[in-house]
C-alpha cells in the first residue's frame, strides 16, 4: 500500500468579510501542551477529565506584582484575599504565605479561614449577614469587622456591651463614583447621610470605636478613574468623620474589582488592550489618595493603611480547565459543534466571559467556527458560542483559561460531579488540592427513610 495522508475531519469554512470577528479568523492557531513546564496530558490521564490545574508560581507572581505596584507608591498597604473568589485551601494558603489576610463574607468563610490557621486578627469580615455567634467570635478574635447595616451595628454594640469592652469597627460605605453602577445595597450610603448617621452613632457609643472605612465599587472595573474617585471620596469622608466624631481612621479599604485578563462578553477589544495593569490602577488610586490626604502630615496625623481586596485579578490566570471532546455534530445552520465533558456546571464564568480555548496538541487543519457545548442536558450549557478552532476529534483535549476566579466556588454539583483540582507546585511537582467527587459525595449527606429504601417494593414482572 502506498503512503496514506493523515486524516482530519472535512471542513468547509465560509470567507466572511472581515473574518469571523476582529481576531478569530486571523489569529494564529495556538496550542498549549504544558503548564509551567509540566506536560498536561499525563495529568489528564492520571487525574481524569475534566481537570482544573492551578499554577502556584503564577499565583505567587500575581500576589507579588500587586503588592509591588502599590507598596512602591503608598507607605502602608495590605491585601485581603477575597475568599469567595476561590477558597480552595491550597490557594488561600499560597496567598497567606505571600502576606495576604483573609477577606471573608460569611460565617462559613470565616470558619474556613480559621480552620486553615489564619488568626482572627488577620481576617477582614465583610458581608450582609454575619450571624450573632460569628460577630461575637470575630470581635473576640480581633477581626476587622465591616458593618453593613444598622441592625448589625446595634447587634455589635450589644455584644460589646455584654463583653464589657470597647471594640473597633469599620463601616462599609456605598456612593456614586460617576464611573460605576453604585452598589447601594451593601453598606451605608454616603450621599443620603446614612453613613454619617452611623458614624455619629458609633462616635457617641462607649462600646464602639470607628477605625476603618470600606467600600467595594464593583467587579471587573476597567476604568481606573472610578478608583481614583473612590479613593478621593473615602479620604474626604475620613477627614469629615474624624473631625465630627473624634475618631481616628486607621485604614481605607477600597475592596476588589480590578479586571483580570479575561475577555468579557460584549467587549470588542481583547483583554490585553483594555485591562489596566496593577501599576495603572495603583497610579490612579495613590495619586488621588495623596492629593486628598495632603493636609494630614501637617496635622501630625498618620496616613491610613490602604487595604485591597483584589480577587479575580490575582487568581484568574493562575488556573486552567482541561476538558475533552466527547462528541461532535454539525448544526442545522452549518456550524460545527463539539460536546465537552466540562460545561457551565464547572465554568460558571462562561456566562460572562469568552474564555480562551486552545487545543493541547498542535493541529494542522483549517480553523473553523465552532460552538462548544458542555455535557449537561440543558440548553444553557454553552462554553463558547463561537470560537475558531482547528479540526477536533473525539477525545481531543482542550485547555480553557483563565478560570481561577469564581469557578471553584460557584461550580455546581448538577447532573455531573465536580472533578479534581491539582496544583503545579513551584518545584514542578504535582499536588492534588481537591479530589474528584464521587457518587458518595452526592449521597453521603442524604437519608432515605426506611419506608422508601426499596425503589420497587412489590416487584411485578408484568410492568
Amino acid at each position, binding site marked *: 500500500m502506498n503512503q496514506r495522508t493523515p486524516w*482530519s475531519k472535512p471542513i468547509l*469554512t465560509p*470567507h466572511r468579510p472581515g473574518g469571523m470577528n476582529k481576531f478569530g479568523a486571523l489569529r494564529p492557531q495556538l496550542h498549549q501542551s504544558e503548564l509551567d513546564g509540566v506536560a498536561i496530558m499525563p495529568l489528564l490521564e492520571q487525574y481524569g477529565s475534566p481537570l482544573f490545574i492551578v499554577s502556584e508560581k503564577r499565583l505567587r507572581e500575581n500576589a507579588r506584582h500587586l503588592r509591588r505596584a502599590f507598596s512602591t507608591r503608598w507607605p502602608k498597604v495590605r491585601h485581603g484575599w477575597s475568599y469567595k473568589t476561590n477558597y480552595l485551601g491550597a490557594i488561600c494558603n499560597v496567598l497567606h504565605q505571600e502576606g495576604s489576610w483573609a477577606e471573608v463574607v460569611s460565617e462559613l468563610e470565616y470558619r474556613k479561614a480559621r480552620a486553615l490557621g489564619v488568626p482572627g486578627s488577620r481576617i477582614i469580615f465583610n458581608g450582609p449577614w454575619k450571624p450573632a455567634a460569628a460577630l461575637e467570635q470575630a470581635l473576640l478574635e480581633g477581626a476587622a469587622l465591616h458593618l453593613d447595616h444598622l441592625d448589625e451595628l446595634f447587634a455589635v454594640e450589644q455584644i460589646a456591651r455584654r463583653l464589657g469592652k470597647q471594640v473597633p469597627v469599620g463601616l462599609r460605605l456605598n456612593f456614586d463614583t460617576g464611573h460605576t453602577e453604585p452598589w447601594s445595597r451593601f453598606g451605608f450610603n454616603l450621599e443620603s447621610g446614612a453613613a454619617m448617621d452611623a458614624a455619629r452613632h458609633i462616635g457617641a457609643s462607649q462600646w464602639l470605636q470607628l477605625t476603618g472605612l470600606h467600600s467595594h465599587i464593583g467587579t471587573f472595573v476597567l476604568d481606573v478613574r472610578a478608583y481614583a474617585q473612590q479613593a478621593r471620596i473615602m479620604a474626604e469622608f475620613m477627614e469629615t468623620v474624624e473631625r465630627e466624631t473624634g475618631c481616628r481612621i486607621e485604614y481605607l479599604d477600597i475592596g476588589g474589582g480590578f479586571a483580570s485578563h479575561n475577555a468579557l462578553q460584549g467587549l470588542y477589544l481583547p483583554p490585553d488592550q483594555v485591562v489596566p495593569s496593577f501599576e495603572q490602577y495603583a497610579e490612579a488610586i495613590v495619586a488621588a489618595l495623596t492629593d486628598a490626604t495632603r493636609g494630614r502630615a501637617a496635622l501630625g496625623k498618620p496616613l491610613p493603611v490602604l487595604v485591597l481586596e483584589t480577587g479575580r485579578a490575582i487568581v484568574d490566570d493562575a488556573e486552567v480547565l482541561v476538558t475533552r471532546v466527547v462528541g461532535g455534530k454539525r448544526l442545522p445552520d*452549518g456550524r460545527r459543534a463539539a460536546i465537552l465533558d466540562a460545561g457551565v456546571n464547572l465554568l460558571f464564568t462562561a456566562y460572562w466571559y469568552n474564555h480562551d480555548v486552545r487545543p493541547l496538541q498542535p493541529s494542522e487543519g483549517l480553523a473553523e467556527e465552532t460552538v462548544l457545548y458542555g455535557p449537561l442536558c440543558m440548553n444553557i450549557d454553552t462554553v463558547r458560542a463561537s470560537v475558531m478552532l482547528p479540526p477536533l476529534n473525539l477525545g481531543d483535549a482542550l485547555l480553557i483559561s483563565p478560570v481561577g476566579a469564581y469557578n471553584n466556588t460557584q461550580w455546581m454539583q448538577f447532573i455531573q460531579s465536580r472533578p479534581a483540582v491539582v496544583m503545579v507546585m513551584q518545584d514542578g511537582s504535582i499536588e492534588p488540592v481537591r479530589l474528584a467527587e464521587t457518587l458518595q459525595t452526592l449521597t453521603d449527606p442524604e437519608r432515605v427513610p426506611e419506608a422508601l429504601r426499596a425503589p420497587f417494593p412489590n416487584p411485578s414482572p408484568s410492568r
Partner: protein
Amino acid sequence: MDNNQDRQGKSLELPKPENLMRLALSDSGFVFDPVSGNSFSVNGSGMAILRRLQQGTDLTRIVASLCEEFEVDALAAERDVIEFANLLRNTFR
C-alpha cells in the same frame, strides 16, 4: 463493514452533482460558488470528498477510496462523509 455497504448506498442523500459542478475548486483549497458569490476554504479531506461528489461517486466508493488515500478507517470516514455531505447539501442548493 461488508454488511453495511447495502445500507450506506441507499440511506444517504448525497448533494446533487450538478449543484457541486458549478463550484470552482483550486488545489490550495479555495472554493468559489458563482451562484451565491461566496467563497470558502476547504481542507484536504473536504476537497477529496468534494471532488468525488462532483463526479457523482456513491458513498460506498467514496468511503473505500478515502480509506486508500487517507489514514482513516471506514467507519470514521463514513461518519465524517455523512456529516460533510449534509453540510454541502445545505450550503450549495
